[in-house]
């Protein structure tokens, strides 16, 4: 997979149903449940979530990406019912995240570490227009923030039994966040939460370790 250079403005890129996306091939990424049960690292963070065995019901994600030299957008699409509102106290919403390493050694499996953190764009189905910009230094350390200066833009539609989501950001460097430049590769990992299956926190499916993602010059 490669992030193609296109001549399209930010609004176009952020529309998951625009022709800029629909005319392109996407790549299917298999997802697996996060390894919670029997994982000693998880047991330390939460011996209760360590007991979880029925999470990770979304097993495939379809990915496309594009940039216009200034703005990077990544489109995710996956089969799911729509859980976009928390009305009752036992309800959860769908979610998705795109994660980037902040150092060469950072691991997606551990969600980074103290010395090798990761940066993620985290969307929840009840968010409008702006996703969280998360930095994590290991399991349980993710700090969610929305930033007025460097927002993670997002648009999502639910159609045909699938979510179609675009998240994106200006490519220019931001202190403490992932950097992107045309002609250079970045690395990426993905996660999806199924709200209908009470997925949140570590209860999710993910794509495994970071894989390379080149940005077309």
């Amino acid at each position: 997979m490669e992030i193609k250079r296109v001549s399209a403005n930010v609004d176009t890129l952020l529309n998951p149903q625009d022709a800029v996306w629909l005319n392109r091939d996407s790549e299917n990424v298999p997802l697996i449940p996060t390894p919670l049960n029997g994982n000693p690292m998880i047991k330390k963070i939460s011996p209760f979530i360590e007991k979880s065995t029925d999470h990770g019901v979304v097993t495939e994600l379809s990915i496309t990406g594009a940039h216009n030299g200034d703005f990077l957008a990544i489109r995710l699409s996956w089969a799911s019912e729509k859980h976009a509102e928390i009305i009752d106290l036992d309800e959860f919403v769908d979610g998705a995240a795109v994660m980037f390493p902040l150092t060469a050694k950072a691991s997606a499996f551990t969600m980074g570490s103290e010395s090798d953190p990761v940066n993620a764009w985290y969307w929840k189905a009840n968010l409008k227009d702006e996703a969280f910009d998360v930095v994590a230094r290991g399991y349980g350390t993710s700090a969610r923030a929305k930033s007025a200066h460097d927002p993670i833009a997002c648009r999502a539609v639910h159609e045909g039994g699938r979510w179609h989501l675009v998240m994106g950001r200006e490519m220019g460097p931001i202190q403490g966040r992932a950097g992107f430049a045309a002609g250079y590769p970045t690395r990426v990992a993905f996660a999806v939460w199924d709200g209908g299956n009470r997925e949140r926190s570590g209860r999710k499916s993910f794509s495994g370790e970071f894989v390379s993602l080149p940005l077309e010059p």
Partner: protein
Amino acid sequence: MAKAPPGAPKEELKRHNRHIANIIDLNKCMGCQTCSAACKSLWTSREGTEHMRFMNVSTYPGAGYPRDYEKMGGGFDEHGEPSPGALPNMVDVGDALTFNHAEVLYGGTGDSVHLQPKASLTGEDPEWGYNWDEDEGAGEWPNGYYFYLPRKCYHCTDAPCLDACTHNAIYKREEDGIVVLDQDLCHGDRLCVEACPYKAIYYNPVTEKGEKCMMCYPRVEQGIAPACDRQCPGRTRLFGYIDDEDSDLYKMINVHKVALPLHPEFGTEPNVYYIPPFESTKAFAPDGSITDVGRIEMNVLEELFGPNVEAVVRKLREERAKKQRGEESEIMDLLIGRNFWDRFKGFENDPAEQVIHFRVPGKA
């Protein structure tokens, strides 16, 4: 404070130098709900908190509050392993019913329209609500019986809510062991609600965060007993440091050992104790004569307070018999509690005379 960053070991979050505790005497509770009203008006009258009852009183035997919470799991099993738990929904936590007060009281229709509750999520006739089974109890006529059980967060020494939180948002205050939930660290994942076997944490769907009883710590810091304890007109409550050897609280828990934890089998070492109901209305015999036997069944008490309750009930009856014979009984004197302030040693201050600074979540 034993606040530790995300990723720090749970032992650090549980560390505390002293611990506060409560005793609630179930023989005196009359189900007046003054305690729950005091708590509600102080802490949970904001948007998104209408359904929360950090302090609640329900009739036993009964569904309890939240509804059937005892069947929802959480806590630790007999090997000390975490027991997965379920989440109560809006109806289980007693809902936040609305009523047509304006129509009935001011609409000029008081003769034709009656007061009608509505469920908050459906707008329909409620299916269940707080105190839905009030005073139903158990037992066959004419020997029906019930008692009231006031409950709040137990500020457990081995708190599973704290263990469950992946963000370390929940911790025990080092100075008093009070279990608090940091709103800034909470992600609203509700792993704590599942893990708490007493279901004492509530989800706020407006802020998307959890909230819980914090033992009125802004009052406690000023030497004022928590609102539910201080407001109780039944004098059911004692509050103080569990290691304060001069206190009535200490004597009842540690010397006389007549105060028992609720559901000790949950394995969390709760810090709110109960004086079990040791006498109830005498039962009728089949011929209509009044017997010497109380109506509350021992297995009902054992289910709530564990196997030790039988011995405690026996001891309390013996102590009362002593008093009836004109002999001394320190236990009975402690239970009677002639001096209200002895019940809150170190926390006798008057809230009207103190300036309390605290931040209400969601308000500047």
